[in-house]
C-alpha cells in the first residue's frame, strides 16, 4: 500500500499547503510518494524530496503542464495510479478541479475535503458547511481523497532526501487552452496560512472603506479576508473570500468586522483559535462564535483599534 500525493505548486515553489497534505498522507500510510507535474519545475521536485515523510518523488515535465490544466494532468495520474492504494491532493481549487477527473477514470467514489484520517479507508469530513461531521468508510480498492489542509499540521520542510524519478509525459488535451491568470500579488501573509486574519463584510459599505481593514492588517501583520457579500458587492477581489465556497482559514486570531455571520461564512472561519467580532448589530450571529464581541460602529472602532495598538510596546508578528 502506498500513497501518491499530487503536489500543488507554481513551477518554482511548492505551495505551503502541500506540507499539510503530506502530513495527512503519512497518516494514511508511511510510504508517501509525491508527484510533481509541471514545466521547468525541478526546484519543486527538489523541495518535495526534502520533506522528511516523503519516500520518493516522481517528476513529470512538459510544456503543456505549465498551467495545471486538469485535462492534461488526469491521464498521467491515472496511469501511475496502478501502483498506489491512495491518490491524494489538497482540497484547494487546484485539487478540487483535478481529483474528480482522476476518480471518475478510476471508477472510484472520491472522498472530498477530509479533516481526519481514522484508518486507511475511514475518514471524517465536514458536510452542510461544517454544521455536521460525517465519518465515512469507502469500499473502493483505489481511494481518491482530497485533504482540507488547515486540519493537518505541516510536515518539516527539510531533512529528507527522497530519490527523484522522472516519468513520461502524456499527450496534450487540445480542447482546453489556458489564456491568462490574474493573480493579485501582495507582500502580506497568505490568507490560508496567516497567523492573523482581519476580514470585512457588507458593513464596510464600500471598497474604499476597506482601507480601514488594510491599516489594521498592516499593524498586525495579518492577511485580509472578506465575506461573500463584500466580494459580491465588489469591495474586494474573490481570492479574499472566506467561507463554504471560498477559503477555509484557521488563524490564531480572526477579526470579523461588519460581518453578520451567515452559516456559509462561519464554515470558513469558526475553527479559528480566537475570534473577535466587531458589529453594530448586537444580535448578529457572528457573536455566537466570537470569543470577544464588541458591539460598536466599525467606523469608530477601527481607528480606535489602531490607536490602542500603537500604544502597545510590542505586537506579535
Amino acid at each position: 500500500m502506498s500513497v501518491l500525493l499530487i503536489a500543488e505548486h507554481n513551477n518554482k515553489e511548492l505551495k505551503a499547503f502541500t506540507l499539510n497534505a503530506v502530513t495527512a498522507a503519512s497518516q494514511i500510510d508511511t510510504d508517501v510518494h509525491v508527484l510533481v507535474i509541471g514545466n521547468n519545475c525541478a526546484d519543486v521536485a527538489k523541495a518535495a524530496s526534502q520533506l522528511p515523510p516523503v519516500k520518493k518523488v516522481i517528476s513529470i515535465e512538459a510544456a503543456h503542464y505549465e498551467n495545471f490544466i486538469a485535462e492534461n494532468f488526469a491521464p498521467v495520474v491515472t496511469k501511475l495510479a496502478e501502483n498506489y492504494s491512495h491518490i491524494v491532493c489538497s482540497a484547494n481549487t487546484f485539487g478540487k478541479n483535478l481529483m474528480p477527473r482522476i476518480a471518475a477514470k478510476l471508477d472510484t467514489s472520491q472522498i472530498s475535503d477530509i479533516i481526519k484520517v481514522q484508518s486507511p479507508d475511514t475518514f471524517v469530513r465536514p458536510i452542510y458547511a461544517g454544521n455536521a461531521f460525517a465519518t465515512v468508510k469507502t469500499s473502493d480498492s483505489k481511494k481518491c481523497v482530497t485533504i482540507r489542509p488547515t486540519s493537518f499540521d505541516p510536515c518539516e520542510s527539510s531533512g529528507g532526501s527522497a530519490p527523484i524519478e522522472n516519468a513520461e509525459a502524456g499527450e496534450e488535451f487540445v480542447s482546453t487552452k489556458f489564456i491568462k491568470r490574474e493573480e493579485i500579488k501582495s507582500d502580506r501573509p497568505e490568507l490560508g496560512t496567516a497567523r492573523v486574519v482581519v476580514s470585512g463584510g457588507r458593513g464596510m459599505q464600500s471598497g474604499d472603506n476597506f482601507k480601514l481593514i488594510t491599516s489594521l492588517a498592516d499593524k498586525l501583520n495579518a492577511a485580509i479576508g472578506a465575506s461573500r457579500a463584500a466580494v459580491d458587492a465588489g469591495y474586494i477581489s474573490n481570492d479574499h473570500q472566506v467561507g463554504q465556497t471560498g477559503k477555509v482559514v484557521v488563524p490564531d486570531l480572526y477579526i470579523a468586522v461588519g460581518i453578520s455571520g451567515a452559516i456559509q461564512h462561519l464554515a470558513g472561519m469558526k475553527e479559528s483559535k480566537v475570534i473577535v467580532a466587531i458589529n453594530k448589530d448586537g444580535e448578529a450571529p457572528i457573536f455566537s462564535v466570537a470569543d470577544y464581541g464588541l458591539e460598536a460602529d466599525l467606523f469608530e472602532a477601527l481607528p480606535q483599534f489602531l490607536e490602542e495598538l500603537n500604544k502597545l510596546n510590542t505586537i506579535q508578528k
Partner: protein
Amino acid sequence: MKILVAVKRVIDYNVQIRVKEDGSGIVTDNVKMSTNPPDDNAIEEAVKIKEAGKATEVVAVTVGEEKAQETVRKALAVGADRGIHVKADGIIEPLAVSKILQKIVDKEKPDLVFMGKQAIDDDCNQTGQMLSSLLDWPQATFASKINVKDGKLEVVREIDEGLETIEIATPAIVTCDLRLNEPRYASLPNIMKAKKKPIEQLNASDLGVDVAPKIQQIKVEEPPKRKAGIKVSSVAELVQKLKNEAKVI
C-alpha cells in the same frame, strides 16, 4: 446549440440543519427544500445564452427522489424548455450521478452541460469534473464569467490565487460559481406556464447505472461547539484582553 443543465434538490441554504440523534444523518422531515444555489446560477446562465440567441434549447435534468421534480419545475419556470427527472432514492454519490448524466448526454447530445460548482449539502464538488472525465470533454470549473464564441467558450474561473481565463471547445462542461449572475425569480404567469412544459420521467435502473453507494456513512455528528465568549465594552478592553488574556497580539 443545446444546453443541458443539471440541478439538485437540497435543504434550503437558510435552514439551520439538525443532526439526527442516532447519528444516522441529517433531519430532513418538514425541512424547507430548494434548488442548490449555484445550480440556479447555472440555469440562469443557460437561459440568458438562449435569450441572446446563442442557444436554441435549455433542458433541465435532476437525479433524485419523487419530490426532486420540483427542482426541474422551478427551472422550467425561469426559462428552461423541458425537463428530465431520473428517479433514484437515497444518497446518490456524485460518481453515480455523473454516470447517469453521461447516459442523458448520450441521448440528448447537448453542446454544453452546466451545473453548480458544488452542492451545499454534501459539499463534494465532484459531479461536473467527473462527468467531463467520463465524456472526455473539456471542463471549466468555478466559472464567474462565460463568453460564448463560435464553437468555443471563454470562461473566467475563480481560483485560490485570483482569476484564471481559459478557452474550451464545445462540447464542454461548465460548473458555475455564485458570482456568475443574479438568478431571476419566477413570475406567477411563468410558474403557471411551466406546469404545462414536459418533464420526462426515467428510472436510474432503466439507464443501466448502478447507484448503490460505495461509501458507507458510519455516523454523522455535530461538530464540537465553541465555548460562549464575552462581550467587551470598549476597544481598549478588547485590545487588553487580546494582549493579556488570549495572548494573540
